[in-house]
């Protein structure tokens, strides 16, 4: 406690003027500032990536507005209340996943959506927040570090939605959600023996997973990653073209809207999952480092909020949101650069698309709620 009290005057002193209204609405100004910076940068890139299509940018702008509103709304609810709502959100999400399995609509051989009167909705998105929230809720009430049986309970909580999503099939989302839950368990202080043991189990199960669990297209993606040249015009095309786009950007890039790879349609999915290639091509390594810097600052802010959180719930949730956010960044940038297999993971707040924006912003809303709780208590 003394630590926080000592820090307070410094931060308050510099920002007192604007603090009052921000504080009233539970807005974490540094985080808001970074997010605005990121979304602005993202829309800039998107304009070029969508072939200088203003309407695409406007549509994404609307998503951002919705996202910011969701964030703002989420920040108004106290973490204790969120904690109580968490299991309900979880049950709701699982019910939706069961509904998807029963009545869902599919595309490209995967059944992931619910059709709600002309509006398509992907319930797995709900679980991206519901799972870490539930883990935080469950472990937040326990004495930490958690005992083994609680850990087993957590693993079950994670396994149910992940199993349902895996069945759709959607390996990428399933793994991401599993990761977000496991991050909560990790942040809660799970013992090293568990971590090491589970890592070993993971490695040992890789072979049977390859043999029995993965679908052919998933195997193909992994194989393609290791040797894109083997199928230049088929599955390898995306990777070759994205690497070419990134590499040809060099240090300073070809200039905004002057990326030949993206402007001439060589780059697939240039405005969605592969948008980092556009950024890398047009703004060069310089632009990539700027983006990473913004991401790092957001991460640092999220970790800081976690460290300063009042409750276990806030801490665990902040940690897993921060780490999940990072996983999105790493998986997306890694896959486009040919480090990881191609899975459908957007670059957070830069790729076009509404669902991920809303989910991510809701997550940041939760972070702000956690951040505000600290201040409320402090004051």
């Amino acid at each position, binding site marked *: 406690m003394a630590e926080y009290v000592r820090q307070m005057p410094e931060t308050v002193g510099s920002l007192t003027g604007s603090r009052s209204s921000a504080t009233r609405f539970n807005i974490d100004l540094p985080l808001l500032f970074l997010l605005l910076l990121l979304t602005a940068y993202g829309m800039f890139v998107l304009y070029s990536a969508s072939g200088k299509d203003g309407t695409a940018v406007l549509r994404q702008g609307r998503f951002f507005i919705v996202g910011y509103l969701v964030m703002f709304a989420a920040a108004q609810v106290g973490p204790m209340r969120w904690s109580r709502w968490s299991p309900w959100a979880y049950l709701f999400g699982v019910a939706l996943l069961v509904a998807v399995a029963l009545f869902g609509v599919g595309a490209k051989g995967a059944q992931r959506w619910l059709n709600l009167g002309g509006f398509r909705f992907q319930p797995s998105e709900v679980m991206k927040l519901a799972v870490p929230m539930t883990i935080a809720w469950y472990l937040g009430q326990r004495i930490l570090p958690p005992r083994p049986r609680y850990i087993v309970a957590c693993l079950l909580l994670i396994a149910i939605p992940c199993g349902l999503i895996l069945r759709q099939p959607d390996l990428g989302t399933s793994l991401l959600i599993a990761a977000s839950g496991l991050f909560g368990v990790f942040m809660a202080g799970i013992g090293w023996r568990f971590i090491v043991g589970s890592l070993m189990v993971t490695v040992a199960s890789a072979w049977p997973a390859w043999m029995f669990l993965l679908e052919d297209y998933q195997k193909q993606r992994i194989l393609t990653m290791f040797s894109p040249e083997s199928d230049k015009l088929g599955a390898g095309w995306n990777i070759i073209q994205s690497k070419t786009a990134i590499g*040809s950007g060099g240090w300073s890039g070809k200039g905004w809207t002057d990326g030949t790879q993206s402007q001439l349609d060589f780059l697939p999915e240039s405005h969605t999952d592969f948008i980092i290639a556009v950024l890398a091509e047009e703004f060069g390594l310089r632009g990539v480092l700027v983006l990473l810097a913004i991401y790092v600052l957001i991460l640092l802010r999220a970790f800081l909020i976690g460290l300063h959180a009042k409750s276990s719930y806030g801490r665990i949730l902040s940690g897993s949101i921060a780490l999940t956010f990072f996983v999105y960044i790493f998986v997306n940038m890694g896959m486009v650069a040919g480090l990881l297999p191609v899975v459908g993971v957007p670059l957070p707040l830069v790729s076009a698309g509404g669902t991920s924006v809303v989910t991510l912003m809701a997550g940041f809303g939760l972070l702000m709620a956690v951040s505000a709780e600290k201040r409320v208590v402090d004051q």
Partner: protein
Amino acid sequence: MASRIALKDAQREQNIYGARTLLAMLVVFSLLLVLVARYYTLQIRDYETYSTASERNRVQLQPLPPKRGLIFDRNGVLLADNRPSYTLALIIERVEELDATLASLRELVVIEASEVEKFRERAARRRPYEHVPLRFRLNDKEQARIAVNRHRLPGVVVDAQLQRHYPHGATFAHALGYVGRINEQEAQEIDGADYRGTFHIGKIGIEKRYESVLHGEVGYQTVETDAHGRVLRVLERFDPQPGEDLVLHLDYELQRTAHNALAGRRGAVVAIDPLTGGVLAMVSTPSFDSNLFVNGISNRDYSALRDSLDVPLFNRTVQGQYPPGSTVKPMMALAGLTEGLIDEEFTVPDPGWYRLPGDRRRYRDWILRIRGTGHAPHVNLNMAIAESCDVYFYDLARRMTIDTMHDYLARFGLGGPSGIDTTAERRGVLPSTAWKRSALGQPWYPGETLSAGIGQGYMLTTPLQLAVATSVLATRGEFHEPLLVQWLGQERQSGALRDAVVADSGHWDAVIEGMRAVVHGKRGTARAISRNMTYEMASKTGTAQVIGIAQDAVYDEDAIDERHRNHGLFIAFAPIEAPTIAVAVIVENGGGSSAAYPIARTVIDNWLLGRAG
């Protein structure tokens, strides 16, 4: 229970959390470093590689094939031009399923199995994104059918190209040669860069000989394309240099006349302008439509041409080697006069046969079979040429010896390449003791000298060589190498001058007077064509034996298979006082020269008189 009651130790949890955060941040930062390292590798270390790959993606170098030079006759009649032709081609990289696409295309247009086969061969050695031709010369209907269906056939394109066309196919097939698709061997020999975008190359004849000038220089344009291969804009353009046009010495009218005169026969006509060596007509029959070869002749058509007994693909004018027969006699006579072995008054007794001293064998004169006796009791030079007396020349040959004969005849261009600007020329055979020793490993026999003296035995000449020799006679010794091309672009071509055949003018007069008498003399062997002739020509008939006649057997034309009949030959130049044309005609198995001289008259008439009508 104990655990439930136990209070959460906030400080401890904070500490654990702090440690975990630190650890997580450590992992996050090391993974971030991995990312940065990866992007650094791609963007800085391997920048060159990817930059080049990106340029290659975007910028395509498109060859602009040059327009092949046109070929005209001496009066500007177009003999070889370029016409737009539409080719069905595939960009294999963009085709979704090759076999299915081929099947669909075969439903739309006729594509033979052999064409598919050739397409697959070409596809195997294509460059990436190259248009691989499948079917050539689409007609309008076929183009339309493909255009309508193109949306469901990705990778299918119709390319417009200029393609060689020979408006007078068969008439000029042997004279011009033809172009055809570049084959694998040629692809290795040519400079690939010069031929990017060009699919044809001269295969034979003038088209091959002048390939380097006819082809021109390839141009390039760099274009920006998108991933679908659509050209967005041209970045740079270097225009191709069209090939040079050729104007030939060949005369369309004369060539056509000669071709028609030979119609239905196997034979050859070569006409030369004696003053320049320019080849005015070069006909070999039967012929073929050279347009068939431009896009790869079908197997059926090719087998028909190849297997025909009449060998239409054989260019008799330069490849056909025939015994010159009596057509060598004027040259023999000039040699004898020059060597002092004969003069105009010198006579030889002619019983119709000749015998070498100390040899019982009789060498017969051709007249023996007809009259049962010789031409006259004593035959002089003029008679010997006009009536083609064999005995006279047996005697001359014996005294001249084979090697002297060889030297004189060689000066007229027999037995060696003429230097003409076409391909596939054969040199013929001009025998000598040295030749026989090296070619057959045998000594020369005196009797063989007699055969050689009347152009039989080992001696073989091409119709072109005979025409050149005639041209040398016409100019009294001037030797222009024969030449088909008169103008190469703006440059006038001239055949090399060889050493002139030097002889006394009196000797020339005597020989040419003899040749005049062949047509215009009362007993000339070709007097049949003198009727209504408004000019004078100097000429010589010839007959080439196809099968050897046994010592006492008689050559009976009717009893002999058509293909074993003698070849008829005729050489002539006209007008005598100022020759403007020298002609050699051969009619295979024509029986005798009577098959050949009417053709020569028709040709010369056309040249000297025919223009009025």
